[in-house]
């Protein structure tokens, strides 16, 4: 494999990073909303968000990308493949992160809510100043774990036809007929992105477990 082929892979890598970043950031924002709705105490809202989460956790990401891609076109929104994938990843991430953070919010001791109420804090302040800082901290290892899952998930954009790292690998592999070399390198590039995150997540988990004792 020559220099040009490798540069082409790096170009794909750039899009993988971009997709992951967009999916994660917008997924975090939407996921926060999902988590808050899921713990709002309003029964129908809680049920609806639980259904939303179950839908995304019970179906393959690939199908979610297909449905969003063709569904958006159907309602008249013309989008590039990458934008459609970004929307799909955002929805996917919002459901998973929403569920992770719901767990975090519920893991904060009840007394924290009661104390905040007794101090006459508003809902917004109670969440922003008391509950969420603790909940997000508890959920940090799981959140990082999901980020790794999301980065790996962006590879499915290649099946929808968007040229990120994996599809770049496919293209090069078809050109130079060295699939093992190409996919070996592609795998390594993913590994270099994900492994530090995994290690960091495991480190946090150990640290939290130790401090909980």
């Amino acid at each position, binding site marked *: 494999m020559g220099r040009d082929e490798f540069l082409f892979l790096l170009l794909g890598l750039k899009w993988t990073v971009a997709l992951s970043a967009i999916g994660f950031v917008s997924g975090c924002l939407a996921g926060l909303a999902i988590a808050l709705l899921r713990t709002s105490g309003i029964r129908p809202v809680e049920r609806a968000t639980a259904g939303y989460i*179950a*839908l995304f*956790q*019970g*179906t*393959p*990401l*690939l*199908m*979610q990308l*297909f*449905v969003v891609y*063709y*569904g958006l*076109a*159907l*309602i*008249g929104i013309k989008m590039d493949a990458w934008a459609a994938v970004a929307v799909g990843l955002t929805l996917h991430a919002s459901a998973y992160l929403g569920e992770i953070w719901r767990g975090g919010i519920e893991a904060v001791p009840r007394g924290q809510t009661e104390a905040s109420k007794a101090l006459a804090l508003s809902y917004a302040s109670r969440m922003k100043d008391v509950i969420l800082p603790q909940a997000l901290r508890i959920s940090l290892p799981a959140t990082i774990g999901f980020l*790794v899952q999301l980065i*790996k*998930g962006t*590879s*499915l954009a*290649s*099946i929808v036809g968007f040229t990120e790292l*994996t599809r770049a*690998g*496919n293209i090069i*592999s078809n050109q130079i007929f060295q*699939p*093992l070399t190409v*996919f*070996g390198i*592609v*795998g390594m590039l*993913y*590994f270099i992105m*994900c*492994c530090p995150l*995994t290690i960091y997540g495991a480190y946090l988990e150990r640290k939290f477990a130790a401090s909980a004792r």
Partner: protein
Amino acid sequence: MNYTLDFTPVVEGLPSLLTACLGTFALAICGMLLATVIGIGGVVLRQSKIAPLRWLIISFVELIRNTPFLVQIFFIYFALPLTGIRLDPTPTAIIALGINGGAYAIEIIRGGVQSIPKGQMEAGLALGLHKGQVFRLIILKPALKAIFPSLTSQFVLLTLTTSIASAISAYELTSVSQRIESDSFRSFEVYFTVTIFYLVISWLMMRLFALFSARYFAYPVK
């Protein structure tokens, strides 16, 4: 915005879609069985006295967990023929799913084994059982019970991952739906319906695991 939904191709394709659901089921179950074998075997090797064996397992787990399944399945698809093993896409997909799920299973089951009090091992040894017997007869079942919820969600995820096996044209739901889609151009209708099918499949899978758990792990704990 004058699109009218037309599910006719979906209805016509229903028999092949439903049969393909069985393909997905079979792929998932075989993948899980292989993953369980790899998981248990990996845990045993992971605790081996021989350091290189432990490192091998640790590297395997991290390599698999930090790369996408799509890249793994491509790699295995192209690598297997070079080792002289010629397999159809579907068995290839089972191997890929087993390897992928196995790496996660090793970590999950290891957590379970570590959660078993040391006294259980000691009581087994004091009764004259060998280490292997103690692991098999005393540690394994309570360890699996302890981590069964995590294992269930990991295996539901494995079930959903089977859809990626369509990339090498294994026989399962997604590849069959892609064929119907490309014949009919009713993309949204096909994929929407198939998404519902997957929802049902993962729900059934969870029920299956709950039933298994209720039968196999029925003993009471404090």
